[in-house]
């Protein structure tokens, strides 16, 4: 496998480790503030990972030391911290893992604009903006019906085991 692609996932540098962290910090903050961003595909892909992990960390609670440190680093502004804990946490309390949606835009066909590259839109789910025209998976096809039924089964078993 080539050097920048371990396990098929691309390893992006973004101008160096310090610059990369600074870039991602701004992007994460911007996402929490505006709830929908339009950037290049690479930047959107990376922020998606960091934002989802951040929301998972906030689920531990404000009193957790680790949670506090992380949130203070990644979301230094007071206003955004409050938004994280008071608005986004209750919204995603029952969501399992996928809090964001990444939609790839069509590339520019014009010669002048060709240098822009692959653009994408990243948004937090459940936001109040008008919806993106994205094709979601059909819940009535056979494999989705089977998976939903299997999930129901496991949840039922888990609740039974907890009671016992």
């Amino acid at each position: 496998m080539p050097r920048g692609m371990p396990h098929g996932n691309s390893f992006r540098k973004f101008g160096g480790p310090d610059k990369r962290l600074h870039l991602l910090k701004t992007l994460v903050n911007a996402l929490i503030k505006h709830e929908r961003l339009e950037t290049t595909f690479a930047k959107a892909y990376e922020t998606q990972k960091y934002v989802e992990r951040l929301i998972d960390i906030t689920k531990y609670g404000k009193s957790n030391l680790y949670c506090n440190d992380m949130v203070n680093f990644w979301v230094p502004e007071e206003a955004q911290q409050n938004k994280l804990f008071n608005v986004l946490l209750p919204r995603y309390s029952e969501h399992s893992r996928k809090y964001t949606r990444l939609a790839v835009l069509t590339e520019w066909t014009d010669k002048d604009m060709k240098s822009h590259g692959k653009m994408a839109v990243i948004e937090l789910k459940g936001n109040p903006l008008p919806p993106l025209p994205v094709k979601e998976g059909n819940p009535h096809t056979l494999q989705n019906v089977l998976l939903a039924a299997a999930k129901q089964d496991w949840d039922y078993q888990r609740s039974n085991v907890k009671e016992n």
Partner: protein
Amino acid sequence: MLCHQSSLRLNRCIHASNGSTVLFASFRCFVSSGAMQMQKEPQANICQPITTCTRTEIMNFQNKTFDDIRKQQLTKLVPRIEKIEIKYKGRGISDSAVMYMNKHLSTPHHCALHISKTVADSAVLALVTPNDENNSLLQAKPHSGKEVLAKDDTEPQPIPWDMHRPLPFNCKLEILNFNMPQSTQWHHDLVNKIYWQSCAMILGAVIQEAFKENYSIGLYKLPHISVNRGAFCYDVITKESLRDWKPQERDLIFLTKIARSIISKNLNFERLEVDRESAIKMFNNNRFQLDRISNILRDKKENAKISLYRFGQYIDISNGPHISNTSHIYHYVVTAVHKLKFEEDADMCPWRIQALSLPQNLKVHHAVWSMLENRARKLVKENLPHPPVGNDEAQNYVISGSIENETKEYMKSTGQWREGIWKKTEDVLKPTIEIRDIKFVRKPHKVA
């Protein structure tokens, strides 16, 4: 009443509770303990003279009668060719068309071929709404005391129709797939239910192929099972010889390989409507299938017909429509064999064989597939004919993660799975499932 050659086959006769002998799957002469008056006549009048009594001979006989009946019906229905008008409703506005096809000869598959080959290949079911006023299939509903809504009266209900079944009237045609993003839940539910039934029918063919001639095994029931249960089933009855059979992983792997070899032949599902007498003639060797026929035709008139479906050489009794072709199936794994208790007769032992399958368009990642497979190992309790033996919990005799992984072929150079190519069966000519206490020895990971 004993069989014609009873001296040779006495050891294989089972004595049913009421004293008459009942013979089992691979024998040509038989008597059922049911309420059929025909069987009181001597054997020579009923049975066709067949030289040997093997499974292949029976299948040849069934297929031959199937073909003969179909020819007869065609010559009756089509003395000369008449035309019908079919309005095809396409995916978009530009796709719709009006076609003039032949009555009793052209099928929805032919209509789809006129549009394009991809439509014909990916089509699974057809929805047909008949147009004509003077139509035998359109039955006028008697007016009940309820309110009359404008919708119910004017529009006739669409009928689900097989792709290879000829159309007898003017109609509107709509073709269904596995994944239709613009359609309602009702369409998807129909297609899923039909896929489940046709895969269950294929299980019956698998069972007939897998067992040696010694072990008499008969097809018992084809239950209707909803997709939510996670697996489809076929109920099967065996004699004493297989009563102590403890199915192991290698048996399940063997059954899946046989299923693959049947599916890979790309067989069409053909439908034929047959009257009672010929149905009895064809399924003369198995009393449980005769019971099935009598159950279906119990409350109906004497001229009522039964619908038989055939794919390849295997014929089965089934009511509803089926998918067009076995090439639609991608994943297919026989997941479990559960033992049931037959309280009336201690000799016979019913089993429930479960399997899981997914179509070509809806392939699934191997990790997700192994999760679904493990769920399909539990006993499906819907429409159980008899209570189960043993615990209700899953009997996990599978040591490896999923059976499908054991049947895959891997490339020598990269170790990756060759998509679409599955390992062939080792013994195709003499299939065996023997009763032995085998210690399961894990073979090294074979690379093609």
